[in-house]
């Protein structure tokens, strides 16, 4: 038994080390990229009218005159302690900016993820039960359509439908979670739905084909020959086996949503990470941008790590050799 545990622990350790190496590489490449691009934070902060002497002074203040590797290590050290430097455009620390905007993005991600799981699983189960029948055809066609609509069209249509026609929500209004949590959730529902719809279509398509495959598998036939009903087979065999591969797809979907949605946040006028990124790019705010890139990398890598672990937990063939 101890051998099994050891190999499991080693599997997790190896994944963890891979995670750290990836993050280090991303941080190095981000830093290198911004060092190569002409112009630096000092000239951005002071604007086009500053004299060379002023810029030079600020450069010294910000430590931009030091050798690159020194700058890199001090930035890396700061990143580890949560200090990503000061935003050139906003004048506040980058970590604070990200922390301010995170609730919106995080809230939308959680709501969107719930929508993805709650809608795509049951529809995929129904579709896969009798592929080619009416229910499956309706779901599949809807899936294709939703997958093909660009997010901004979808957002506009949703706004038109909900606010103008039915007067259900006021678009453009945003309540902080600290003020009223329920109205915070309320104003995120519609944008989350707009973000979730194409992801639902994608997850549905994937789950449907996985479940059809599972339904036709030998072990499901064995379960049928044991006298299990369709529903029992779906819950005991089809779902757990589909989950093994669905975990990775859903983690991909989630990492995509967590990055913030440029378009949906813009349309609904929400202060999320997508809009922060947009501002950073427009104002050439290098500290903010490198901080954002590090954040996005962290999320992606962490989710992959989580997906790997969940897959290993779900599938004994990975866990126990």
């Amino acid at each position: 038994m101890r051998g099994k545990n050891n190999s499991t622990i080693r599997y997790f350790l190896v994944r963890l080390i891979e995670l750290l190496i990836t993050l280090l590489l991303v941080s190095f490449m981000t830093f290198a990229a911004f060092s190569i691009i002409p112009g630096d934070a000092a000239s951005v902060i002071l604007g086009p009218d500053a004299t060379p002497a002023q810029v030079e002074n600020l450069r010294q203040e910000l430590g931009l005159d030091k050798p690159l590797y020194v700058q890199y290590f001090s930035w890396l050290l700061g990143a580890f302690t949560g200090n990503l430097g000061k935003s050139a455009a906003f004048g506040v620390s980058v970590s604070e900016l990200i922390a301010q905007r995170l609730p919106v993005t995080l809230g939308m991600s959680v709501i969107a993820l719930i929508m993805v799981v709650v809608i795509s699983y049951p529809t995929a189960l129904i579709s896969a039960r009798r592929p080619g029948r009416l229910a499956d055809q309706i779901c599949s066609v809807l899936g294709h359509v939703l997958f093909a609509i660009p997010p901004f069209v979808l957002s506009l249509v949703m706004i038109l439908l909900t606010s103008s026609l039915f007067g259900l929500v006021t678009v453009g209004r945003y309540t902080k979670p600290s003020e009223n949590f329920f109205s915070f959730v309320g104003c995120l529902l519609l944008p989350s739905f707009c973000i979730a719809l194409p992801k639902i279509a994608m997850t549905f398509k994937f789950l449907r084909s996985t479940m059809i495959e599972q339904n036709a598998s030998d072990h499901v036939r064995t379960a049928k020959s044991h006298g299990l009903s369709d529903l029992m087979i779906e819950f005991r065999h089809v779902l757990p086996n589909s989950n093994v591969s669905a975990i990775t797809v859903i983690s991909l979907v989630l990492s995509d949503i967590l990055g913030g949605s440029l378009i949906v946040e813009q349309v609904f006028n929400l202060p999320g990470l997508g809009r922060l990124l947009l501002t950073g790019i427009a104002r050439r705010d290098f500290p903010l941008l490198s901080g954002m890139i590090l954040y996005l990398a962290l999320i992606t890598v962490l989710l992959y790590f989580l997906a790997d672990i969940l897959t290993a937990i779900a599938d004994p063939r990975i866990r126990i050799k």
Partner: protein
Amino acid sequence: MRPSRLLEIKNLCLGFPGRKGTYTEVLKHLDISVRPGELLGIIGNSGSGKSMTALAVTGLLPREAIITEGEILFDGEDLLKMKPRSRRALLGNDIGIVFQEPRTALDPLMRVGRNLEEILTVHGVKDKEERRSKIISMLSRVNFDDPEDIYDRFPHQLSGGQRQRILIAGAALLSPKLLICDEVTSALDTVTTVEVLDLLRSLCIEMKITILFISHDLSAVENFCDRVMVMNDGHIIDCDNTYDILHTPRNEFTAQLLENAKLNPHSLNLVTADCDYSASPVMTGRSLSVGYGKKTIISSMDVDIFPREILGLIGCSGCGKTTLAKAICGLLPYQGEINIKGGRPGTVFQDPVSCLNPSHTVLWHMKEALRASGRSKDKASDMELIDKVLVEVGLESRPLNRYPNELSGGQRQRVAIGMCLIAEPELIVADEPFSSLDATSAAEILKLLAKINRERGVAILLISHNLHIIRALCKRVIIMNRGSESETGMTSEILKSPSSIAGKALLEAERKLHGM
């Protein structure tokens, strides 16, 4: 009163609707009756409707299938008139079924115990301890020495034979009246086949389970069944006790079926080259170790192949025969030493379908082999050489512009052999070259290999699980077991009185299965 027939299929017609209103009839007025307690075999070519019969009885037919008429009486009750729910209640309880491929038939995410437990849960065994003890005792019933350990294993930790025994344990768990075995031994090697057949027979006798044994393996049927039905084109054409059917067939089709299945290498009078064992070997392997990743498949084996000899390599499946062949051909990394005279050996594999590129012609394959061997000269002499080789391997019709899917299995294997010969190797490695061919083509390829050995003096390493073929073709044989050599020696001695356990097991299995 108990009906004298446990299962009675009367006038069953079944088919599948195709596109544009077409309809393919699979079972045509099928009549089968199974007596309680008997071992009934059903044989027939693939596509004759054997498996559809099994699925019809168990109600596991594909959704598209339509039963147009007939009835299936089980214990006097018509299964086709039952509600789905009561039909399901019969499954696993009164009717069990085991299928061909044991490797994929268990849920890979569940431990063996949980895989089997669901049968008891569904059929109303509520007490958890009772379920466990029932499963443990059934696992020891199907000859597991350590049932508690097996209970906690995952399917991927078990061999194919072990998984098949677990599936049989599952099907027999609630002592059903009828157990349908659909090609249960087809994916197993000879030794394991005999184990499984012995197990089924004992279940039949001790638990009074009636067994419907569907197979195309005539030797398994011969030594296992009391009665045999011959199926062709969706209905039964012949039925009698096993001995009469297989030895004095009255029906023309049955006779043909037996004739096709019969591969008697001794009657082919194969003449092979004389081999001089004092000459220096064409291939020497010293302390060979081969593995995939960290898993060692073969550990420190020594192999010598002498010029002009046909060396047999046998052993049960999973013992490392194919791995050794791949290492010798340079297809796998290995540790140790391999010396081969005359460059890379030629290779012939089991499945000639996947070995040829489906999008290219025979000519392309031959040219490719010629180019790879470095013997290609000018166009005219290349074509001459290709032509000569094709004639040599028996493709006198020179199907240069045909694609692999336009050739028969035997013809494809001839092309593969031709591709070896064009490089003029001193050694050919042939890994189960006959096992995907029907008996007639297998005999032809067998003759061809003997001819090549005789006329070209090429040494051949022949891997086969068919001991008849080994006896007829190989003077010397190696028996492998668990990645190392158990025994090596002259075929005439080793396959008469083997000294190793693996050798004895192989011979014993063959004796039981083929009744020799």
